[in-house]
Every structure is written in structure tokens, then in C-alpha cells.
């Protein structure tokens, strides 16, 4: 019994060996050893897909209430659609609708011009929201041409960046992750800043390197800047809400709720 209680007993040799092996693993992984790097890619791929398969049934069961709500909403929308369809028919007869539609399409294409780029569509297969990281796994990897740093977009809004690429999967970090750094341009006055993930701030976001004399206005839009050459210029990120009574007291809101992300687009050029 006495021997069991001691930390430095010979019988603990196996324990020290496992600890030592773990430390060596940490060192090798950090020092980017090629063998460990390749092994890590294989481990990541297998872990991500295993977790996806294991958690898939639970995820589907948890989705049921949301699906029911969607069904109820769809019923309401169907009624609205019937009314709209009647209106469309009227307008079509007047030829007015087609002209308006053409105009809208033309405007939309102009807006989409900056987003013309090679894009990969990927599925989010798992999400991690913990004290250590706020990230997600994608079902596309280096085989599909993904690179570290590529911007991840949903509905033309930036939601994160690729942080690690494996063979068949990749890891993306949300903008709210503490390691996320995104150069941005803010508002009409085009202030340059870095959008940083700050877990303890409101909405887990903060701005760094703002000019000394800055004054935000309510609903100032935040767009990406191509200052470091990694991100594309002008991808929408979010907006600023200035608190009453102070111009320098503000909250940052993202355009897209990253919690509900299921499929994303990744710019690879």
C-alpha cells in the first residue's frame, strides 16, 4: 500500500513512460515534424469522420423540433405564395414584371462581381464551441484544393477562415475564436482595423488597431480588407451598434449566426 501511494515508485515506470511519450508527441507536433504532420492529418480525418458518423443519429433526432417548426412556417408561406402568384400573373399580363426582374438581375450581377472567384462548397460535419476553440470541421481537404487561411463564406458573409487542412477534411475557425484575426474596413469613413475573437467581450468580438480618433455611427457596416493579401476585399462581415451616450462604446454584430451553419463556400483563389 505504501508503495502505491508514492509518486516516485518503480511500479510507476509505465506511467512515466506514457507521460514522457505525450510530451514527446506535443514537442514533435509543435515542431512540425513531417511524419507527425502526416500522421496528424490521418488521425484528424479518421476522428472527424468517426465523430460525424457516431453523432449523426443524435443530430438528426435533435433536428426534429426545428423541422416541425419549419413545416408549420412553410404552411404559412404557402398561403402567402398563392396570393403572390396571383399578383405575378396580373403583372405578367402587363409585361411590367419582366422589366423589373431584368433590372434586379442586372443589379445583383454588379453586386456579385467582387465575389467572382473559384469557390469550393463544403459541408460542416462537426462544430466545437469550448474554452479551447470555437471551430468547425469541413468535409473537404487538401485533395479538393483547400489552403490554410482561405476565407469561409455563407450567403456572402464571412464566417471564418481555414486553420488546418487534412487530406479529406479541414478545420475552420469562426470569427469569434480567440485565434481569429481578420483585417476589416468599417463604416463610411473606412476605418482600418483588425477584427479579433474575444471570448469575454459582448458577442465574443473586438476591434484592434483602430485609429486614435474614431467615431462610429449606428449600423456602420464591416467589410474585409485585402491588407494582408489573404482575404478578398469587400466581403461583408457584420455591423456596429453604438451604445447610447458614447461613440466609443459599441457592440459588434455578425451578419450570419454561425451556430446554424451547415454548408459553406470557401474561396480558394
Amino acid at each position, binding site marked *: 500500500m505504501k508503495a502505491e*501511494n508514492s509518486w516516485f515508485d518503480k511500479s510507476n515506470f509505465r506511467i512515466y513512460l506514457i507521460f514522457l511519450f505525450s510530451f514527446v508527441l506535443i514537442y514533435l507536433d509543435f515542431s512540425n515534424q513531417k511524419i507527425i504532420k502526416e500522421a496528424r492529418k490521418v488521425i484528424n480525418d479518421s476522428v472527424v469522420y468517426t465523430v460525424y458518423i457516431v453523432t449523426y443519429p443524435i443530430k438528426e433526432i435533435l433536428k426534429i423540433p426545428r423541422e416541425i417548426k419549419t413545416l408549420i412556417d412553410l404552411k404559412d408561406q404557402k398561403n402567402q405564395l398563392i396570393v403572390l402568384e396571383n399578383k405575378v400573373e396580373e403583372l405578367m399580363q402587363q409585361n411590367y414584371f419582366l422589366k423589373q426582374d431584368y433590372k434586379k438581375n442586372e443589379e445583383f450581377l454588379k453586386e456579385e462581381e467582387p465575389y467572382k472567384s473559384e469557390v469550393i462548397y463544403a459541408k460542416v460535419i462537426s*462544430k466545437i464551441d469550448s474554452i479551447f476553440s470555437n471551430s468547425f470541421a469541413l468535409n473537404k481537404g487538401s485533395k479538393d484544393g483547400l489552403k490554410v487561411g482561405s476565407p469561409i463564406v455563407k450567403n456572402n458573409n464571412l464566417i471564418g477562415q481555414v486553420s488546418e487542412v487534412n487530406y479529406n477534411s479541414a478545420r475552420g475557425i469562426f470569427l469569434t475564436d480567440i485565434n481569429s484575426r481578420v483585417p476589416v474596413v468599417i463604416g463610411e469613413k473606412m476605418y482600418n482595423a483588425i477584427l479579433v475573437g474575444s471570448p469575454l467581450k459582448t458577442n465574443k468580438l473586438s476591434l484592434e488597431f483602430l485609429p486614435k480618433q474614431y467615431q462610429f455611427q449606428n449600423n456602420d457596416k464591416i467589410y474585409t480588407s485585402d491588407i494582408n493579401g489573404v482575404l478578398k476585399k469587400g466581403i461583408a462581415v457584420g455591423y456596429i451598434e453604438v451604445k447610447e451616450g458614447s461613440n466609443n462604446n459599441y457592440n459588434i454584430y455578425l451578419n450570419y449566426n454561425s451556430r446554424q451553419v451547415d454548408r459553406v463556400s470557401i474561396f480558394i483563389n
Partner: protein
Amino acid sequence: MSRIKKNYNDVIAFVIIIFSIIGNSVLSEFKFFADINYFFNLQYLLIYFFSFNRFKYLSLLTLFFLGLINDSLIGISLGISSVAYMTIYKIAIYQQNIKLRSIFISEWAACGLSIAVAYSFVLTIFFFQKVSFDYLQYFYNFLGSFVIYPLLWIILKYCFLKIEKFENE
């Protein structure tokens, strides 16, 4: 709780720990569960509790592999979680061995110590690897974990006693 457990208890304990590791990917879609992760570290608490109560399938080797899975999932260097888990395990076993009689306060204090040592190790590695971290966030998480342990202890003891009772019947 007796040292020799029936199979169900051990299996259930093991499944709970695995789910605490991979379950984040399921529950993070719900704001409530995602926010809970910032207040306390369920994995560390469960590992301490089950190690202290000597559940069968919880060994150093198991924790080493569970740590690798966790590291791979959250995207930090392989081995960090393994060392953290094994440290908690070792402190729990040590505390369990030296205790003369069952005093919850000493178990609770050792739990706090084990989580503090685990976090200190993780943050030291992050510091050397130049990974960003907010030490205040970890401090709050440590406090939350420490405070929540008695509640978790009551829940788990109650549940496992019920299971044991059911098995004996």
C-alpha cells in the same frame, strides 16, 4: 461506492466520458449548451470523479487515447489533453489512496488542485506555442468547475447508486 463495480456502471461511466468529449459537436448548436462549456469543464470533472471512484475502464492508456481524440477534435497539439487528463487521473488516484476516511472536502480540494494543475500545464504549452488565450477565461472556468463539482458529485452518486440498486434487484 464499492471498488468492484458491476459492468453497467463502468460502461455507463465510460460512455458519459466519451460523450462529454464528442458531444460538444452535437450540443454546440444549442446556445445554452455551448455557453455552459465556458463556465465549467465537464470533461475534467467527470474524469476526476470516475478516477476517484475507481471505475474499471478508466486507465492511463484509455485517457491517453481519449486525450488524442479531444486534441484532434479541438485542433490543438496532440498530447496536450492526454497529459491534462492523466494528471487529473493521477491526482485523483493519489488522493483516493491517501485518504483515511471519506471526507468530501478533501476530495473537493484535490479536484480543484487537479484542474488547476491541468490548466496550468495547458496554458504553459499554449504560451510556448504562441497560441492566443485569455487567462481570465480559464480562471473563471476553473472557478466554475470547482464550484459545480459538489452538484455533479450529488447527481452522479445518486444516479450510480440507483443503477447499482437496480442491478442488485
